[in-house]
């Protein structure tokens, strides 16, 4: 019985220093939040910042991206890597005072795997045996077993290296005593889903009208210690408005948790205001330039020419105002899998790029159709730079701006593009097969259709290893191979930028990895 996990004493989330104040803070989310605020069930990326305030996960990461206890005080993994047993923290209560038990875990799994609900995060639980069948509408027993009120076991259909990253740190329980009374069809959209008023996180929702004026109140029973703010208001707005609003004193916190972020050109404006603190932290979202293997980029030399042509550092400097790092590896530098020694680092080298192109016999008369989604100005700005830099090596790139939705269709369904930029929202996880496996051309986000049996095999192997020491040799090979083959040009990992009006709110310290707002610690000034 191999075991991982930490002791219950190193609780990371609790902070004794926080006093229960009467303060209110207003938080701006960029973009629409969508109706569903049920953890695990919302399909909206922008909603994450809100659901984080409502929920807690079983485990969390520390600074080194190692697991630390959260709702679970301890976990054990069977030697074959298929059975995980979690011990739940004792004395935890939902915001209405109902005790938190293993039933609440089951309730959440059941809800996510109900054929009548939809969720983008099915991967959190899909390694568990029987879940896929249940979701597909076949009768199936799920590999979940309640041992007692504070202990449960899940059985996986196969060993899975990223199970803890997903089920452990992303999955959140749902209140069984509430959810069991809700019809499955209402789980995504019912009243409770839209305004969860029984939560396990630092806040619960008190009122909501549409996308605006969501109001949350402090959870008196929060397990992680006293919540600093009495009230938290959430408002969805556009980037410019958010920046304006915080400058005008109408908003107190912009938590870099939405899909759109504070524009680099606004950082200076914000910083120039003495009350506003700009907080930057590294993020695992990778901006990626996809090259279509099925049209013009089947030749590795051409792909390498592209990466040599680009000045990614320069781009980060101008487009992101320096707030980001060049993406050298599929694993972000703060990931435990990242290893600078095994990867090839590319810097701009126009001569070499030209050489590679001519070696590959590139036909300069061809136009390269570059699909650029609108919405994120850093992307549209970068696309122009990319176009110009590729022009210098003799690639005739034509930009076609389309809305994001169209871009996704053209990239993932129709594969009708030569170049395109899309973001890969990263989760700390060794499994990158959705981005690079042959199968993922049809089913994942391997939009360019890169195919390499060796890589396929490495990725498949790595997933089955649950010990870091077993994983490391494989992930090293994976990142090395990917950096050599250049299936995509990974442009950068952009820093998340949060802004806080320190005159109103204190102690906003987001954690690296972009995972946790730690809103429980916020206090009012």
């Amino acid at each position, binding site marked *: 019985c191999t075991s991982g996990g930490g002791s219950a004493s190193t609780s990371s989330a609790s902070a004794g220093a926080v006093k229960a104040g009467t303060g209110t803070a207003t938080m701006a989310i960029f973009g629409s939040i969508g109706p569903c605020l049920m953890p695990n069930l919302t399909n909206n990326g922008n909603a994450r910042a809100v659901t984080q305030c409502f929920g807690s996960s079983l485990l969390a990461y520390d600074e080194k991206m190692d697991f630390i206890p959260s709702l679970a005080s301890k976990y054990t993994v069977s030697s074959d890597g298929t059975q995980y047993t979690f011990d739940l923290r004792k004395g935890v209560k939902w915001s209405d005072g109902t005790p938190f038990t293993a039933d609440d875990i089951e309730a959440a799994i059941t809800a996510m795997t109900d054929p009548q609900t939809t969720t983008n995060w099915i991967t959190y639980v899909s390694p568990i045996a029987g879940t896929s069948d249940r979701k597909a509408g076949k009768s199936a027993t799920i590999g979940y077993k309640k041992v007692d009120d504070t202990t449960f076991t899940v059985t996986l259909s196969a060993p899975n290296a990223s199970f803890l990253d997903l089920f452990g740190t992303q999955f959140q329980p749902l209140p069984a005593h509430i959810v069991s009374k809700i019809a499955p069809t209402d789980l995504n959209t019912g009243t409770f889903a839209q305004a969860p008023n029984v939560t396990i996180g630092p806040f619960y929702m008190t009122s909501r009208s549409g996308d605006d004026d969501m109001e949350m109140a402090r959870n008196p029973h929060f397990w992680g210690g006293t919540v600093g703010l009495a009230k938290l208001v959430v408002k969805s*707005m*556009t980037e410019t408005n958010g920046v304006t609003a915080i400058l005008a004193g109408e908003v107190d916190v912009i938590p870099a948790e939405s899909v759109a972020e504070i524009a680099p050109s606004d950082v200076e404006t914000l910083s120039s205001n003495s009350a506003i603190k700009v907080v930057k932290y590294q993020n695992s979202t990778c901006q990626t330039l996809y090259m279509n293997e099925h049209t013009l980029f089947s030749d590795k030399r051409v792909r390498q020419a592209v990466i040599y042509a680009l000045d990614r550092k320069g781009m980060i400097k101008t487009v992101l105002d320096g707030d980001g790092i060049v993406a050298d590896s599929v694993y972000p530098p703060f990931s435990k899998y990242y290893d600078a020694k095994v990867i090839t680092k590319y810097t701009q080298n126009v001569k070499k790029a030209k050489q590679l192109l001519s070696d590959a016999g590139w036909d300069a008369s061809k136009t390269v159709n570059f699909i650029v989604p609108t919405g994120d100005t850093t992307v549209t700005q970068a696309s122009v730079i990319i176009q110009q830099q590729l022009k210098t090596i003799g690639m005739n790139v034509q930009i076609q701006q389309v*809305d994001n*939705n169209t871009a996704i269709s053209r990239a993932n369904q129709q594969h009708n593009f030569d170049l395109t930029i899309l973001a890969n*929202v990263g989760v700390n996880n060794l499994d990158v097969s959705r981005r690079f496996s042959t199968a993922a051309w049809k089913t994942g986000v391997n939009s360019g259709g890169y195919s390499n049996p060796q890589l396929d095999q490495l990725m498949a192997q790595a997933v089955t290893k649950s010990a870091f020491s077993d994983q490391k040799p494989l992930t090293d090979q994976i990142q090395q191979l990917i950096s050599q083959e250049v299936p995509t040009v990974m442009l950068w990992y952009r820093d998340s930028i949060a802004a806080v009006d320190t005159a109103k709110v204190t102690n906003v310290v987001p954690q690296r990895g972009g995972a946790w707002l730690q809103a429980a610690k916020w206090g009012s000034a």
Partner: protein
Amino acid sequence: MLLRRILRRLAIGVPVVIGATVLNFILVNAAPGSPLNSLVDPEAGPAVRKQMAARLGLDRPLPLQYLTWLWNAVHGNLGFSYENDRPVVQDILERLPATLLLAGTALVLAYVVGIAIGVIAALRPYGRIDAASSVVGVLGISIPSFVLGLLLIYVFALKLHWLPASGMTTLGTTGSGGLLQHLVLPVVSLAIFDLAIVTRYTRASMLEVLTEDFIRTANGKGLSATRVVVRHALRNALTPLVTLAGLSLPSLFGGAVVVEVVFQWPGMGQLAVNSVLARDYPTLLGLSLVFSILVVIGNLIADICYTLLNPKVRDD
């Protein structure tokens, strides 16, 4: 008589509304992209996608999808928004008042102020007020509303702190807290273009009417100057403006899209942008239904005003 006219107008509106929604439906479906793209994470895999498509009824043939929508719409059910998963009616009803308030206030502002300036300018053509108004007029039609909006925010919200920068009500307040202050900047940004146009038209129309013989008749009767201007000149000068106003309504709703985005105004403009970008068909169709009904109503109101102002038409 008037009632029959109204009813006829409304009957004529039915094909317009249906036409607008059909066209809308065809166009959004002609565009690449799918509602699934924003509902299903690309990394979630095709199974989830398929499940979602079935759930939304997107796997059925297009004409059937539209007809189902129409059938339900006729019965008062505009369906559920894909994005917000709420009844579209609810979404629209929540936002319609905001847009109506914004566009309506802008319309009133543009017409009341525009007519007033136009009349003053016409009474003293080539005078100082006339010159000033034409300068403002030129500025009004040459500055994009988003630039004006941002400038206004910069000056009045950030520098002078006189007015709030965005939103419709002050956060945390309930009801209509600070609504008036919030209304000022967006309304000004939205109204300025129409205001310029209205001023120009009023001036031209007034100048023309003031040369009419019946104005001379009125003066010759010994009426006061005010009465001549208001009762005789203005009333007749308004007729062409009514037609203009009928055309203004749709264009104001169009303009509101940008202004709503700039000022974070919780109206239908933003909803429209979002629903197009997300291919939220039910919301889109609902909106196009509402827009076309508004156009029909706008036409109708213009028509009625026209009839009331113009006794000649009233008889036909």
